[in-house]
């Protein structure tokens, strides 16, 4: 049994095309907590995820918005930090930062981004998280300098500061990425279909994150566990078990129709919340 005790979040994973705005608005109206978008700019049928998120932020009022996950090699950290903080301010604190080291190197290269090995991707992500947090941190007026292997920032003015504490949620699967998530992440955001043994994989992967968190002097509960899944995996019992057995507290359902979002918000979410509340006591 693993349960990190977070409140539960329910959301959707919407294909980033022109229809996505209507689906996000529907998810917002339905009362879901989150709407998220994958980030594959080299896919011609998709629109630019950041531009879409900014548009959606303006057209919605309550729902939180995140990339799921943003592609770091195509989103330089200094640009991303400023953009995310700006949108967080404009949206009244509704932005979270789902971030990944970047898959599909050919696609990244075709869009003019750097081609990185998995190892380089992890190092670059570590640097990027440091830069992003520094730029958000405006309690000091000290300029930000960062002379890294992948990113160089020289004398950058900090800010703007986000309206709320933006969570950095990391898409991670392999041991080194999981360790990075435990060390630096505010959240972990994998997809159920990519887990080698399905939900059963979560136990070992959670342990890896917990271990790395502990080694960095952090509490395991400082890393929220979220999970992407298909509608077929999002039944009430299934989600309650994911929450109580595997510590998942963010359920993100892939859906390109408004009915799934409405069902999730109106039927599934309250029932799962009830069940989990009862079990947690």
């Amino acid at each position, binding site marked *: 049994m693993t349960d990190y005790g977070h409140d539960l979040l329910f959301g959707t994973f919407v294909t980033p095309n*022109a229809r996505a*705005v209507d689906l996000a608005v529907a998810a917002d109206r339905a009362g879901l907590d989150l709407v998220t978008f994958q980030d594959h*700019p080299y896919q*011609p*049928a998709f*629109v*630019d995820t*950041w*531009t*879409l998120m*900014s*548009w*959606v*932020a*303006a*057209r919605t009022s309550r729902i939180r918005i995140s990339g799921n996950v943003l592609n770091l*090699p*195509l*989103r*330089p950290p200094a*640009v991303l930090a*400023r*953009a995310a*903080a*700006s*949108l967080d*301010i*404009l*949206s009244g604190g509704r932005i979270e930062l789902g971030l990944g080291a970047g898959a599909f190197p050919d696609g990244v290269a*075709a*869009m*003019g*981004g*750097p081609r990185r090995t998995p190892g380089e991707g992890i190092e670059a992500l570590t640097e990027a998280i440091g830069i992003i947090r520094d730029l958000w941190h405006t309690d000091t007026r000290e300029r930000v300098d960062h002379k890294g292997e992948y990113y160089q920032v020289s004398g950058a*003015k*900090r*800010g*703007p*500061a986000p309206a709320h504490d933006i969570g950095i949620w990391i898409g991670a699967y392999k041991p080194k990425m999981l360790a990075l998530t435990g060390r630096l992440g505010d959240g972990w955001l994998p997809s159920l279909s990519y887990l080698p043994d399905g939900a059963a994989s979560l136990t070992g992967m959670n342990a890896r994150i917990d271990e790395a968190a502990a080694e960095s002097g952090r509490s395991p509960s400082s890393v929220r566990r979220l999970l992407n899944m298909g509608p077929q995996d999002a039944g009430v019992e299934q989600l309650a078990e994911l929450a109580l057995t595997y510590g998942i507290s963010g359920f993100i359902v892939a859906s390109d129709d408004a009915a799934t979002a409405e069902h999730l918000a109106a039927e599934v979410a309250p029932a799962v919340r009830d069940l989990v509340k009862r079990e947690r006591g």
Partner: protein
Amino acid sequence: MITEQKIALDPATFAESAVHVDGPVVLEDREGGLDPWTAAVWLAARDENVRITLPAAPAAVSEEMADKALDTLNTLAGSRVTTPGAASRFDDLPASLIKLEPGDPGYRGRSSTYMRGGRPALILRPRTPAEVADALAFARRHPELQLGLRSGGHGISGRSTNTGGLIIDVGAMNSIEMLGTGLVRVEPGATWKQVGAFLDKYDLALGSGDYGGVGVGGLATAGGIGFLSRSQGLTIDRLRAVELVLADGSQVRASDTENQDLFWAVRGAGANFGVATAFEFEAEEVTEVGWAQLALVTDDLAESLRQYGEVARAAPRDTTVFWLTGQPRQGQSVIQMYGLVDSGDPDTIIERLTPFATTGMLAQQQVVVARYTDVMAQAADVGAEGHHGRGEPISRSGFLPELTEEFARDVVQLLRSGQTFFFQLRHMGGAIADTPSDATAFAHRTPEFSVTAIGMDRQGLDAAWDLFLAKHFDGLYLSFETDQRPERLHDAFPPETLGRLRELKRRYDPAALFRDNFPIPLETS
């Protein structure tokens, strides 16, 4: 008078000051302030009437990513947001012309083609012959820019995109008009799908290639080997007149009675001589046709291919079946045959197709009575998002005088080399051979087949093709050839044709402005 309202990107005040804007807005960047792009998108979504000028193009890792963001906002908001990135790097652009440069909305969809990635410095989109002349004047002033011509953006040999150069894109010139009995006037930017749909209303059709998404201009200046060629001749054989803008900007008309030498040259080597702005074709009555797609499996590909050759050779002119295969798997090959019987009579259709269907083990078949336009209409429409090819296509072409047993065996060798994943035969013969070799710049009138292989590796495909197949061929179809070695020009054009083309090139394009698609050198090498 409309006054622009300047709004500071101050995190504390922006949202408030942007609530009730009246008139256009200019966003002012400042260090530590809001990200201009994010703020602009947010504001455009909040206020459906606001027009916004940004201080700079969106901050991004690359121009491609900045373009993607601009295109996305254009999709969501229309053209209400402008950036100074749209200012041209050229100060001598013809005022008349629509242009697209990196960063302009819509640029991305026209920077790549069906099979090729590119990033031209400038795309000019003329709408009239006079604008084509303006575009060519610009090209003459900029000999440093590689010049590509684009109609439908399907060119394989033609560089209808490039990197850092100029593209003249005639895609906006796409009207189709009926002139008289069977005579149709078509502009180069129309696609063959559109031509098919237009002619269908008159029970007419005009053969093109095998894919309706291809543009008229590129195909109709090279040849056009398609499903109706065996009954109608090549597409260029149906051409009765063409209007061109030449390298010096002059507008000419060429036909059997005017500028005959140009008319000869355009039919097979058109890309060397000018920008075609209109074609007049004589279409023929075609009503219902039999459209067939057959999938066969064979463990003796050489024998199946040999049999296909025999069957095709015996087929009457109304029957055209193309043959396609890829990599054999576990000793088995899948053959796709697709083609057309120019008859609406089911018995005739079955009679014609049955011999083809028995050259292997028939695994799947779909045979329907359809209209020629339905065959062309299978091509997907290319929307505003355009083409998104990447890299460079690697393709070889050869004209096969006779499909022999030895050729069939060598095809198996080529496929075993693993260097091609797409190997196609287009059946020629019939009416194609009715036109004498010297009547058009397309001289190869007598091959049985046009053969094409597409691969992934330039040197690998060239080596395997040269080793196994080259000896079987006499000539090539220039539209499907991407090998740039100088010998290929001699494959495309036999000596007499090339000699005449060279003479005409010296006369009509002495500065070699048109040099991107099988350029004809002015001097003999």
